[in-house]
């Protein structure tokens, strides 16, 4: 529960830098400068934009359903922010609802659909309604590959507890209760009999522990892009067709909250992805012989060094993930709605189902 103290200010500050980063990345990809005027290299551009947004008038369309329209941004942000409560931050600072962490996340992540529907329907605008309908269809369809890909990880790690999944992917595996005697093998194949428990680093990350998770990881990445309404799946706010999709009619602070929740969603899926696939708060550096890189860059749990190292690794991996999301956004064109659906139902879902089967078999190899 106490992780909220960390995440609420972090999301706000992160969003400011993420918007700046997004604009710079898009500019560099398109051979432009991006924001350059406010501060050195335009550093304060987002702060200036935020100040402007807060000052702007809060407009409610005359024919809108006022209650729904006003409350929708709050619901969108709340439902996404609820997802953060279960995430662990460091090796000794874990979230709430630990026993069902992943399960809760999957449930809560899809709830922002309610807010999007309220926003789209309440605004009483054709653009908003179309955007909202698309958004719901998209999020509900892509929930399935997301859930299935998360299920693959759960099959491998045998736990819904995000902190336990984190501990499994590093040299501290034996420090977690009930896992004192668990060993990590190379690629998870115990028959090879190469014990990598003390190697740590990338060798114990989930995508290395069970290479079957690499395609699962790709499926997760694609479908969470769609879940967070990011390009190339940004049909709900397709600028060229729907003005701004479901948040066409919003202005000022409420619009800022919607943007905040979009970036919050990106951070949430990135953090979850890092925890599930990329070693959570564990270091990527392995121990090589006497050079104990993994031990040096992990630190003992419950110590200041341990906390700092783990929060550093977790956040830097998540921010890298977000940078890749932005890179993808500024590379690919938007999908058509039927392409979107066929990608989800004909390609991602069957593959994810097949991969669940393979992960089950892989788990047998790991025993």
């Amino acid at each position, binding site marked *: 529960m106490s992780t909220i103290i960390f995440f609420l200010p972090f999301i706000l500050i992160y969003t400011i830098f993420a918007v700046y980063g997004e604009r710079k990345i898009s500019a560099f990809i398109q051979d432009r400068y991006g924001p350059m005027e406010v501060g050195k290299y335009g550093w304060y551009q987002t702060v200036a934009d935020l100040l402007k947004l807060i000052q702007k008038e809060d407009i409610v369309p005359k024919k809108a359903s006022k209650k729904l329209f006003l409350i929708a941004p709050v619901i969108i942000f709340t439902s996404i922010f609820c997802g953060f409560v279960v995430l662990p931050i460091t090796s000794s600072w874990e979230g709430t609802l630990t026993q069902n962490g992943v399960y809760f996340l999957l449930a809560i992540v*899809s709830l922002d659909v309610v807010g999007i*529907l309220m926003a789209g329907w309440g605004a009483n605008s054709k653009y908003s309604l179309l955007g909202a309908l698309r958004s719901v269809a998209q999020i509900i369809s892509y929930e399935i590959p997301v859930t299935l890909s998360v299920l693959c990880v759960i099959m491998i790690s045998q736990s819904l507890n995000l902190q336990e999944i984190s501990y499994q992917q590093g040299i501290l595996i034996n420090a977690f209760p009930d896992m004192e005697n668990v060993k990590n093998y190379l690629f998870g194949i115990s028959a090879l009999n190469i014990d990598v428990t003390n190697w740590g680093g990338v060798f114990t990350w989930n995508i290395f522990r069970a290479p079957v998770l690499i395609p699962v990881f790709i499926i997760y990445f694609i479908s969470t892009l769609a879940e967070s309404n990011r390009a190339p799946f940004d049909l709900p706010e397709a600028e060229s067709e729907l003005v701004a999709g479901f948040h066409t009619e919003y202005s000022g602070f409420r619009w800022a909250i919607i943007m905040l929740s979009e970036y919050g969603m990106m951070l949430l899926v990135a953090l979850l992805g890092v925890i599930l696939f990329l070693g959570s708060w564990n270091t990527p550096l392995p121990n090589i012989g006497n050079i104990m890189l993994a031990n040096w860059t992990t630190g003992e749990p419950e110590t200041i060094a341990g906390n700092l190292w783990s929060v550093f690794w977790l956040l830097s991996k998540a921010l890298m993930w977000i940078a890749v999301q932005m890179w993808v956004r500024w590379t690919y064109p938007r999908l058509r709605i039927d392409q979107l659906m066929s990608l989800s139902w004909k390609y991602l879902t069957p593959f994810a189902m097949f991969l669940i089967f393979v992960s089950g078999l892989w788990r047998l190899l790991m025993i």
Partner: protein
Amino acid sequence: MNWMTTIFYFFGAITVLSALGILFTRNVLHATFLLMLSFFSVAGIYVLGNASFIGVTQLLIYVGGILILMVFGLMLTTKLNGKALVTENHNRLIGVLLGTVFFSILSYIIIFSANFEMLKSNKTLPENAVEFIGINLMSNYLIPFEIAAILLLVALIGAAVISEKRKEKQE
């Protein structure tokens, strides 16, 4: 009264009030959102009762699945003729009678015949409830589990068949 009890009563009040709101509101859309609030607070009560798995399931299935589909359907249909969809009262006498009868039967059963075993024996749910539920589903309750799975599969195939394009009609 410690703070857990306070929160419990808070959730209880929200559940009951929003359920009453569903009864008395005319606007179907508002009723749906109130139903969502009700489900939410029920999930909260589950979590308070140390049954977070059921609480999250409540969220996932009722709020995240069924209710979103309801809202989706409603929003597509309500504004067809420019008016909000409102409920109307029919068969008031029979309705009132049936309602009272059901309410009294249910409250009788709950108050007088339900024995709150957990409360009496001061037991708590095991820490690894998920594991427990999983093992039981796969062993003692395998047949109901499989039947539910087959039912869902049938529903899925049925939906696919219904939504399939019929060639005779198109030509």
